[in-house]
């Protein structure tokens, strides 16, 4: 009865199917900070120069919060604050300038950089990072993180990773992919001829929980990202879906299907019998832990359409949270804010909304018509979602501060069900 399955575990094999984040759907509504990212001077005697500045610039620009000036318009290319003539930059209306240079050995170069406030005439950030040949990209993202934090006050999210599902044309293969936050370096961590759904990162970024249909029904697996080692969450192999990690990483909330009724259960990662959290004949799914781990938000259609409810993580009475309209599902809490992202349906359009948990006001971020699966960056300043826009399908990335939305697409097949990973450094 088990469907013929073809599973291949490839721990570290970069895929040719590199995703591209190049389509801008909406443009910034906010004033972007004019910044100049000057190409870093390559002082390493051996080896091919690596353009760190290019990556940093792309990271910053993507958010819509920065307007980098073109290299061709730079009159000089200083490599440190002391070499700079600030008036030159003031004329260009640039507010911040990033300069730097790379020195040392080819295998383990040192990257030194400085962020300069042009108007205050002072250095905001002086840093020296040790890099290595295979980590140039990561180093560049790290620099972007530091610049972003210095200029916006929010921690950068460029060094984080994404997980998502790629469905090949004809649905012949389902791939679970882990990639950098900019969509680069996609790595297939699981392939299957059966559907893969709902990837979810452990709080330390070392594990992924997801749903696989390889046994003929939806089942939750946990997999170590680095090694590819995996196991079913439940030893009894019951039908379950929508895994969500607790903030301490010790347990997972899942929607478990028993006797054709889906309820929320909490599984300890060390095994043991699951604890039942909801008890209702309606559909209960899409759990999400609160940041303190004390509450679990979830979707239930006990009131005809799906709505968001919250229940104490130790069990108790569920309280309804969402009231606007007849379809509010898949809650994801915004880090450090009293807001959550939801999928909201109105007149047949499924859109991503941001709901304030205090006054229940709802702000719709996207236009749909088939948007789903929102997931926040760990700094809460961006979210990724399964975008079904009129401009195309893929992964939408929405930057909350600028209102900029971008679309990440694969050359072949559909990308869906993204999960933005946690900080890893």
């Amino acid at each position: 009865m088990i469907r013929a399955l073809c599973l291949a575990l490839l721990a570290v094999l970069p895929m040719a199917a590199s995703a591209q984040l190049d389509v801008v759907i909406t443009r910034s509504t906010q004033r972007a900070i004019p910044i100049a990212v000057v190409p870093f001077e390559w002082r390493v005697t051996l080896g091919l120069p690596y353009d760190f500045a290019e990556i940093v610039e792309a990271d910053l620009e993507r958010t819509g919060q920065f307007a980098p000036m073109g290299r061709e318009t730079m009159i000089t290319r200083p490599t440190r604050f002391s070499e700079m003539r600030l008036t030159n930059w003031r004329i260009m209306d640039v507010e911040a300038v990033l300069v730097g240079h790379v020195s040392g050995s080819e295998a383990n170069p040192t990257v030194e950089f400085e962020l300069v406030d042009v108007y205050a005439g002072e250095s905001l950030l002086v840093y020296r990072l040790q890099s290595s040949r295979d980590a140039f990209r990561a180093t560049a993202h790290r620099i972007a993180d530091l610049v972003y934090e210095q200029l916006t006050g929010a921690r950068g999210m460029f060094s984080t990773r994404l997980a998502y599902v790629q469905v090949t044309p004809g649905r012949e293969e389902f791939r679970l992919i882990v990639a950098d936050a900019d969509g680069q370096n996609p790595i297939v961590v699981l392939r299957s001829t059966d559907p893969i759904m709902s990837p979810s990162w452990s709080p330390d970024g070392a594990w992924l929980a997801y749903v696989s249909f390889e046994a003929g029904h939806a089942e939750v697996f946990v997999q170590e990202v680095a090694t590819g080692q995996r196991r079913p969450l439940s030893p009894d192999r019951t039908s379950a879906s929508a895994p969500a990690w607790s903030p301490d990483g010790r347990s997972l909330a899942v929607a478990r299907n028993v006797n054709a009724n889906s309820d929320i259960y909490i599984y300890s990662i060390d095994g043991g019998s699951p604890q039942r959290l909801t008890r209702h004949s309606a559909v209960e799914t899409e759990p999400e832990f609160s940041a303190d781990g004390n509450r679990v938000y979830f979707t239930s259609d006990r009131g005809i359409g799906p709505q968001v409810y919250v229940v104490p993580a130790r069990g108790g009475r569920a309280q309804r949270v969402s009231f606007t309209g007849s379809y509010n599902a898949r809650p994801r809490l915004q880090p450090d804010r009293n807001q959550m992202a939801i999928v909201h349906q109105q007149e047949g359009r499924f859109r991503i909304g941001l709901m304030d948990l205090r006054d229940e006001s709802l702000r719709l971020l996207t236009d749909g018509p088939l948007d789903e699966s929102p997931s926040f960056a760990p700094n809460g300043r961006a979210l990724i979602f399964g975008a079904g826009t009129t401009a195309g399908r893929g992964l939408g990335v929405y930057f909350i501060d600028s209102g900029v939305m971008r679309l990440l697409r694969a050359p072949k097949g559909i990308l869906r069900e993204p999960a933005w990973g946690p900080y890893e450094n």
Partner: protein
Amino acid sequence: MKRTDWPVMAVALALAVALASPADAQRRRDRDVLEELETRVGVLEQQIRADNVVALINAQDELRREIQALRDAVERLDEDLRRNAELRRSQFAALEERLAAMEARGFTPAPASPQDATGQAPGDAADAADGAVPGDQPPEPEEPAIAAGSQENYEQARELLGQAQYQAAGAEFLRYLEANPGGGLAANARYWLGETFYVQGQYQEAGAEFARVVSDYPDSNKLADALLKLGYTQDELGDTETATATLERVRQDFAGADAANLATIRLAQIEARSR
């Protein structure tokens, strides 16, 4: 069930045909017809059965949806009630704050009960008229005329109240009460002492002072206000039952007075909250 009608008729017809023909060959043919009809009746019954099973399952599904729709309506009404109660609470809090500020400025609105109007301090009358806030404004007890000299502490306390220095004001009211236990302003001082606690959220202490106004000065013109505020504090402390009884008493004993109106509103709030 219209479908059940015509197979029955068909059977009857077939029987009639069978009885009308005596020949053997005819009988055999009739038997075939009968058998066929029987089969067709069976098929129909089978169909009815399947239809019924599906109808039952769908009815169950429909019921589930009905219940879900009802639950949705109940949850929405519940939420509306909760929000309304919250809104009213915040409106009252804002009003009370404004009033406390007005009182603190030495500004005395309309008298709590008409017969006490004579006791109003000179100069306050005009302010009171200007400051008449519509309907739901908490009562402001007026000051009785008192002998000069004994009211220094009292005046200073009111002054401090005006500067929102509640603790200092409370201490001054207390000093006045110690110096003039039977003074003409004792009930007022006690009442205001309660207010200094109330405004700081010290409901336990506030309640004790309001209760003393009620027990020690039963003839005071502060009685209605003190009782009302006592009810408020009891409610704030979570003793809904006692609060309800106290506010009920204000409503009945001081019918027509502002305190009674305010008690009525607070009672409605409590009721809305408890639903």
